[in-house]
């Protein structure tokens, strides 16, 4: 079994083990073991990957494997990873692992909860290792559907509504994606040769420019909906607000990253002409998302809504970085994907921790929590500081790269876009500090005088996340280096087409 397929096989085995385990303790332990294995595998993958690169392997994708699946349509199970996907896999494994810790206390249908979580994770892993559009699409949908059950069964508030809305909107997006994929597929023989779903085979072909212009928006929007592109982001606040903590973490931390990754790897890579043609249009939407998400976050009262809008804003930066069409901005966008993944997961984890104690997420109803649960409060502040781009944390590195990349365009249009995007940072500071000020500082609300301390599993989960946030912030070049190594083919294809 090759090193990548294991990422799909191990979750399946974990599911089987879960089905046969009895009692909540066994379920927890089995799920935890499964995810620890996956985390170790992802570390090993990074190690192997770096080893491979150090050994002089300069293929675009390493650890590739290609098995014919549906021969009549030339559909392959084709996998491989580059630096970007390796880091995304690491992100996924870490967040799922911490998610398990945070949802240690799930007691309603725990087995089903963990199974859904695992199916979701395996979909995400599969997505990141896929090189074949068909395989990728399959895994994408596998990742989306468990969300319905996860939010619907274990969520809170208007969970049925939120779950339905999220699923329908994301599936609607995948409908667009499908049209785009078929459009690419049937143009993949433009230079003669067979029809193919393989991204790198397609990339060798010059898809007719008209077809690129037609199908790029399908692929872009299809991926961008899950990346919360304005105005298709509305599933995200409701979905996040209703989802249980681990699911919010996983969803905002990982699932929403499929969007940016897909746009970069598929939409822009196979259709560079389309990307250049549409870049400015989507850039406007992205910057609206950035600014608008931040402003909308200020006024929210529910912690999860604040964070959901913040995600809209920060993922808008990812899209913006991608559309800026240069190396630094791309690097920034990928770093932002990573960094936002960790940060937002930490955020949602802390919201879960606070909510688990106060049973409210309304900011105005809480005050002075720092006195009662100092560790949780401090972690919340760390998440906030990282989110608003304080140097030393990951957010700063990522956003800095995006803005530096953005400023390389000297024309007025890009300047205006960039300035708007940069100014959103200020707004970010406002909504973060506002919450910190209202909720953590000041006199403690009387009914919250005696909240239980943060427990070991919550600590474990959140400390891991903080560790990674700091690691990216302090060693940006290590992470950036892995990404930069893999951006070469993109530059070659997209910028010099």
């Amino acid at each position: 079994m090759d090193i990548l397929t294991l990422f799909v096989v191990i979750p399946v085995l974990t599911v089987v083990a879960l089905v046969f385990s009895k009692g909540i303790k066994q379920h927890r332990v089995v799920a935890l073991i499964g995810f620890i294995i996956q985390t170790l595998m992802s570390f090993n993958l990074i190690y192997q990957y770096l080893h491979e690169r150090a050994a002089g392997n300069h293929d675009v994708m390493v650890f590739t494997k290609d098995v014919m699946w549906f021969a009549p349509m030339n559909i392959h199970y084709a996998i491989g990873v580059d630096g970007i996907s390796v880091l995304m896999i690491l992100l996924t494994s870490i967040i799922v692992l911490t998610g398990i810790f945070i949802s240690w206390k799930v007691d309603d249908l725990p087995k089903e909860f963990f199974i859904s979580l695992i199916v979701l994770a395996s979909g995400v892993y599969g997505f990141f290792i896929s090189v074949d559009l068909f395989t990728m699409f399959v895994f994408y949908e596998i990742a989306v559907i468990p969300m319905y059950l996860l939010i619907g069964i274990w969520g809170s508030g208007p969970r049925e509504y939120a779950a339905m809305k999220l699923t329908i909107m994301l599936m609607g997006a995948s409908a667009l994606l499908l049209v785009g994929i078929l459009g690419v597929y049937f143009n993949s023989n433009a230079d003669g040769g067979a029809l193919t779903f393989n991204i790198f085979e397609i990339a060798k072909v010059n898809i007719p420019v008209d077809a690129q212009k037609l199908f790029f928006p399908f692929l872009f929007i299809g991926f961008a909906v899950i990346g919360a592109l304005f105005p298709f982001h509305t599933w995200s606040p409701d979905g996040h607000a209703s989802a249980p903590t681990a699911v919010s973490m996983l969803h905002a931390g990982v699932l929403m990253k499929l969007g940016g990754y897909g746009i970069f790897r598929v939409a822009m890579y196979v259709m560079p002409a389309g990307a250049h043609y549409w870049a400015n249009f989507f850039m406007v939407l992205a910057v609206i998302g950035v600014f608008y998400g931040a402003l909308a976050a200020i006024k929210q009262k529910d912690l999860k809504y604040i964070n959901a809008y913040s995600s809209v804003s920060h993922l808008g930066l990812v899209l913006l970085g991608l559309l800026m069409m240069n190396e630094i901005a791309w690097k920034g966008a990928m770093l932002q994907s990573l960094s936002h993944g960790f940060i937002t997961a930490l955020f949602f984890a802390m919201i879960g921790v606070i909510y688990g104690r106060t049973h409210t997420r309304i900011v105005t109803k809480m005050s002075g929590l720092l006195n009662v649960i100092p560790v949780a409060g401090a972690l919340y502040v760390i998440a906030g500081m990282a989110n608003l781009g304080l140097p030393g944390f990951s957010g700063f590195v990522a956003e800095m790269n995006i803005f530096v990349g953005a400023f390389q365009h000297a024309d007025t249009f890009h300047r205006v876009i960039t300035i708007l995007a940069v100014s959103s940072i200020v707004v970010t500071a406002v909504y973060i500090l506002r919450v910190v000020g209202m909720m953590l500082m000041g006199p403690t609300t009387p009914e919250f005088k005696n909240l239980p301390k943060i427990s070991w599993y919550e600590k474990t989960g959140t400390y891991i996340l903080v560790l990674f946030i700091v690691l990216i912030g302090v060693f940006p070049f290590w992470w950036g280096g892995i990404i930069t190594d893999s951006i070469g083919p993109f530059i070659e294809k997209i910028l010099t087409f």
Partner: protein
Amino acid sequence: MDLNSLMLMRHELILTLLILILLIVDIVFTGENKKKVSYIAVALFALYTLISFLPLKEGTLFGGMFETNKMISSFKNILNIGVLLISLLSINWLHNKTLKHQKVGEFFILLFASLLGMFFLISSRNFLMLYVSLELSTLPVTALAAYDIYSRKSSEAGIKLILSAAISSGIFLFGISFIYAAGGSLYFHDLVGSIGHSYLSIAGLIMFFAGLAFKISLVPFHFWTADVYEGAPTPVSNYLSVISKSAAVFILMITLFVTFRELIDIWTPILYGLSILTMFIGNFFALRQQNLKRFLAFSSVAQAGFVMMGMLAANQLAVATVIYFMAIYIFSNIGAFGVIQVVETKSGKLNIDDYNGFYRTNPNLALVLMLSLFSLAGIPPIAGFFGKFFLYTSAASKGYYLLVFIAVVNVTISLYYYLLVVRAAFLRTSDNPIPYFKNDALTRIGLIIVVVSLFLIGLYSPLYDYINSVVNVLNI
């Protein structure tokens, strides 16, 4: 014509023999022993299904009226498996106390007789043969629809079906007479190239099409579907929704692609339009159904729209994907109907709201239901996804991107109502849920086969490869 060439219709012969055996068995067993008839029927049918997988020669019989080849026999095998599953699942309903086991034998005899009709239908290469076998397949089903003599709805369903079918047959025959007038023959192969673009031939084509569209439940020929599915006993609705529909789709495909290839510019826009109409109408009606059988009826209407989309390409890919999709669809729908039927038999509940909290009392059944519905909705890694994806591919191969787009929009709508059922069964809790009950072994075997197939047909690609290999569009 010697005995050897008669073996070309092995499926039909064995099935006829089986029906005859059952007639005798039905007389032999009386009273409480009647129950055993059903076991014998299922056992014999299972044996027959296995035998039918033996390789078969290709050739024609009766002066070219009857043809069999690998594609046709493979499709017959698929139908066999479908009927076997329906039979397996129907036993728990047949042994239900209210039916008093009086007519257990009849049920299977009629079921198999109808299947026999289907087999002749898909093998026929002559319009008269086509008509006769269509009637042979329809009449037993109308009797089956009215099978539950204690239920007024069942009788209503029977009457509605036979009346609608009569109108449909009338128009169908009228169309055939036009075609004869235009082409001077009733043989498919003679008609190739001799139909011509006359008003007569076009009208004939459309009337003929309407007759088959009635079986497939394309809008606007679908109105009987919901009422009959709702009223008829659930195994019969199940049969109507999968076997009857698949056979009609198959023969429609052959006639359109071969006989009417000349008129491709006529029937392509018709298929295009009806496909969109069928998807939308089916989905819009399904959205607000409370009764699960009506719900599945409209869902199956919408599915027919997708099949039409796949047929548009009119090439090898289209035939292969449509057959593949129908095979998957058979399993998905049998799964969904099977669960509903079990629940209806055990608790009498049939509304979506009754399913609130279903997972917490009957997790396995709820899972089967969910997987079947997800397969219908086209969610990977369940087979339905692959079927749908290939249909899109087939349509997109001829550049029908707009239609594909409309179809995926419809898939999203359909996902909504499939999720409504999942919502009831999984998300909600109820003070008065469907109580836990144990299923008999046959039902369990049936549902397990369904679930395994739902995963296998999609993920295990050699099945598709096989279908693709037996399809030879020039040779249909």
